[in-house]
């Protein structure tokens, strides 16, 4: 192909930012010299996966993706400019129009809304005059994964010395300060709400220095990798299968089966991808693991790489986690320096390389096929399965994709055997699970409990007060369901939640009080899906808009036709989206909303002007 480049010229800063990135990724045989078209187009094109890091470099250096900057990046990577623009405009954290260098993203998602985010945003609207200060701007943001410290915000300053900071328990004063260029407190991992002696997966968090490999080893780290090297790939997979571990990212697929499927593929190379995109509103467990025990994930990925026969792993990390990024990068560097990553690990002939790739503000990139497309430098659009990524994955090769929590369960399984792990939990739901408790509770945070623990017990632990005072619980996240009343007694397992038409999802437990208005939360969920749909397929692209409009009518008590017509319309939309959408986003986008209509009677309540419905019309 013969590409027509963009005629606008890149600035020196843009050229520098991109050159530095490409230099760092230069193929070994070219170290030190970067020809404009490195060794033929095939290799140039094979660098397309650097498009996303390149766009990050431009955004962080200049605050936006200018035609000149995009043109230079596309020319270096041999990507058609229209394609480059298509990718840049896909992500919420990239701007394709000039922006002030300082951006403050204020979360107004479900947990933060319950913690008063709307009030803070109203204050901000009054106090901050956008025209008076061209140097800074604020935006509403979907969940930042800091729900236990809600309300939360993220401050991104671009320039020669870019800075990214997220923090919780935000006040409007702090936001004003942040916008004026002042300092803000950095969110540090909140202390765990549970007694450490009951914890397995979380046991090291808070007890170990996350920056010290030696401390990790002193706490039992890297014993599992040694054991894994003794066992060999086959036995590791057998133990993982015997453990009954299922995926913790939401879908609950048996991990042992996934690994066996990748290991059985003949094609080489194979890849391991860790899904750390954690963008489901109300979810923050993976952040807790990565910030509190980063070496655990590095070790777990190394073991997984050994088991499935992958010599290269990618950690796809959501961009809103600056602390996790720093700590994971530090852990990877330390492990590499100590010979625990790279070539010939521990002198045992094992090769495994690990690289972090950052998302850029797109919930859909948590969906596995969208994640792969994003890693390859394409738009984060999911595709229909089959073929599954275990056969056709990253760069068309067999690929194993696992959630952070799933992988972090593996070292203990390898060390103590699958049977020991299977003994915890129930027959069909083995092991412990992390739950992200937020909302109206005294002790929000990440809880680790054996699967099968009743929801009521978790609520008590978190200080939700007497069950009668609980209006409902949003279980499983934006794609989950509202439960209430007797259902609060259900055992937290995959099978029991399924029985009542609910899901554990990513472990979200958002607690609503008896007087909490529900409609504003539903409207926020609907707006979330509208914003986060990739836009590829009709049921989801247009359906999410129609659902959001419908809820606005419910909130405004102005139905189109009768209320029962509205209810029927929602049902039909939900059915079509579940049946005909390409991926899980569209398929589950009405789940929480329909459950609130069915179980909390939201439409009837809104029609009767009941304050518990409560609109934000």
């Amino acid at each position, binding site marked *: 192909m013969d590409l027509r480049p963009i005629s606008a010229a890149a600035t020196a800063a843009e050229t520098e930012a991109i050159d530095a990135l490409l230099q760092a990724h230069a193929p070994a045989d070219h170290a030190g010299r970067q020809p404009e078209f490195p060794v033929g187009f095939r290799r140039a094109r094979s660098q397309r996966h650097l498009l996303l890091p390149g766009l990050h470099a431009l955004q962080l250096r200049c605050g936006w993706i200018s035609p000149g900057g995009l043109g230079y990046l596309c020319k270096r990577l041999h990507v058609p400019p229209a394609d480059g623009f298509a990718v840049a405009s896909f992500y919420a954290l990239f701007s394709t129009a000039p922006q002030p260098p300082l951006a403050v993203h204020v979360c107004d998602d479900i947990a933060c809304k319950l913690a008063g985010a709307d009030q803070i945003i109203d204050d901000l609207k009054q106090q901050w005059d956008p025209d008076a200060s061209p140097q800074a701007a604020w935006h509403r943001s979907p969940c930042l994964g800091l729900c236990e410290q809600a309300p939360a915000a993220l401050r991104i300053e671009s320039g020669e010395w870019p800075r990214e900071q997220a923090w919780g328990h935000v006040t409007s004063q702090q936001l004003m300060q942040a916008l004026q260029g002042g300092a803000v407190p950095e969110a540090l991992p909140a202390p765990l709400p549970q007694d450490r002696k009951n914890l397995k997966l979380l046991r090291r968090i808070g007890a170990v220095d996350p920056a010290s490999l030696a401390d990790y080893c002193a706490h039992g780290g890297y014993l599992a990798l040694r054991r894994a090297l003794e066992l060999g790939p086959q036995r590791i997979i057998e133990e993982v299968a015997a453990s009954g571990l299922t995926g913790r990212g939401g879908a609950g697929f048996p991990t042992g089966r996934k690994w066996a499927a990748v290991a059985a593929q003949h094609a080489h190379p194979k890849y391991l991808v860790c899904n750390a995109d954690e963008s489901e509103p109300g979810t923050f467990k993976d952040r807790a693991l990565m910030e509190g025990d980063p070496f655990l994930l590095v070790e777990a990925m190394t073991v997984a790489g050994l088991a499935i026969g992958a010599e290269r792993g990618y950690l796809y990390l959501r961009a809103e986690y600056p602390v996790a990024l720093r700590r994971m990068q530090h852990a990877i560097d330390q492990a590499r320096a100590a010979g625990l990553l790279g070539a010939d690990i521990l002198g045992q002939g094992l090769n495994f390389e690990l690289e972090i790739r950052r998302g850029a503000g797109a919930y859909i990139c948590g969906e596995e096929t*969208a994640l792969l497309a994003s890693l390859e430098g394409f738009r984060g659009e999911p595709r229909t399965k089959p073929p599954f990524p275990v056969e056709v994955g990253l760069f068309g090769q067999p690929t194993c994709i696992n959630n952070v929590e799933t992988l972090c369960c593996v070292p203990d399984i390898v060390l103590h055997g699958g049977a020991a792990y299977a003994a915890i939990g129930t027959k069909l739901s083995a092991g412990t699970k992390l739950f992200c408790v937020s909302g109206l509770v005294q002790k929000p945070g990440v809880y680790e409990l054996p699967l099968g623990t009743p929801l009521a017990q978790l609520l008590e632990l978190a200080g939700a007060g007497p069950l009668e005072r609980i209006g409902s619980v949003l279980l499983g996240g934006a794609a989950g369901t509202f439960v209430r009343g007797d259902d609060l007694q259900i055992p937290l397992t995959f099978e029991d939640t399924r029985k009542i038409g609910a899901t554990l999802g990513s472990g979200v437990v958002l607690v609503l009080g008896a007087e909490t208005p529900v409609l504003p939360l539903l409207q926020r969920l609907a707006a979330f899906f509208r914003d*986060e749909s990739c*836009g590829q397929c009709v049921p989801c692209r247009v359906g999410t808009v129609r659902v959001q409009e419908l809820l*606005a009518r419910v909130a405004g008590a102005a139905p189109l036709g009768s209320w029962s017509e509205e209810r029927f319309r929602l049902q039909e939309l939900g059915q079509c989206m579940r049946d005909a959408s390409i991926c899980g986003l569209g*398929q589950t986008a009405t789940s929480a909303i329909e459950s609130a209509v069915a179980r909390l009677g939201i439409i009837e309540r809104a029609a009767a002007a009941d304050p518990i419905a409560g609109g934000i019309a």
Partner: protein
Amino acid sequence: MNPHVRRPQPLPADHPGTPAPRLLTLTIDGQVAQVREGTSLLKVLQSLGIDTPTLCWAENLTPVNVCRICVVELEGARTLVPSCSRAAEDGMVVHSDSPRVQAARRTVLELLASSVDTSTAPQMLAFMARYAADGQRFGPAQAPLAAGERDRALAGHHHLGDGQSAATVAQPVKIDNSLYVRDYAKCILCYKCVESCGIDAQASFAIAVAGRGFDARISTEHAVPLPESACVYCGTCVDACPTGALMFKSEHDLRQAGQWRPADQATTRTICPFCGVGCTLELTSQDNKIVRVTSPKDSPVSAGALCVKGRFGTVFVHGVAGEEGDEPSSTVP
């Protein structure tokens, strides 16, 4: 487009390396069908004479399965499956016209019709009649956006309405060259133009889907006008567009003037006179003037694609500007 949509193509059936084809047996609406491995469900449906609606599928393009109008019910599957891209498997039991399938197709059409101008999409209008789809059921359409507003939308941000009107993609038509116009108020985002411009035909990569969600749109880089983009005016995208969102300027102007009269038109199949490739042309003429040049998708030479000369150059038969007072209806910018 997600690169994984493109799967390795199987070897042609007569290639010596091709193993003897495996025959699959499946049941469709109670009929038993035997097909070769690798056949799509849509092909099987077509071979049985089951009329299946499609919008984003075309025989000369890689399936992107985004419109979801072709879905069918597959026993054992949690969701409906797109027949255009799902390969037949042995033992499949498929229902192509179950109530669930009809409901999904109807709602998909209603969602499209509520957000897009379907006035020049006869195929869609026919589907809507067939499934009794009501494009008005989501309320009156919102006022059109100003020129360029949709092009500037940023991912993850939208204005919350009160739900009293239905958001649409309505916007002014883009006329930035003398050969074809882009009326994205009619765009259903079927990706056909993007695929035509990409590796499926033209390999110019001038346009792509930008933005996301409801703001997703066909765009050049930073939405620059076509003459500043990589477009070479081959018109393949215009030929592929199922809704008239992309339209030859000649046709657009006649429609604007109320002079587009399909009843008075004739089609002539001929061979492009410009070079030795010999692409098949289909000339639509009205009042003895060529008003549209297309290329049959099943032509073994051109498979629906042409270059700028065949597509826009045949108007030379009308004579030279100034001669007999005739302007060529199109000029290359």
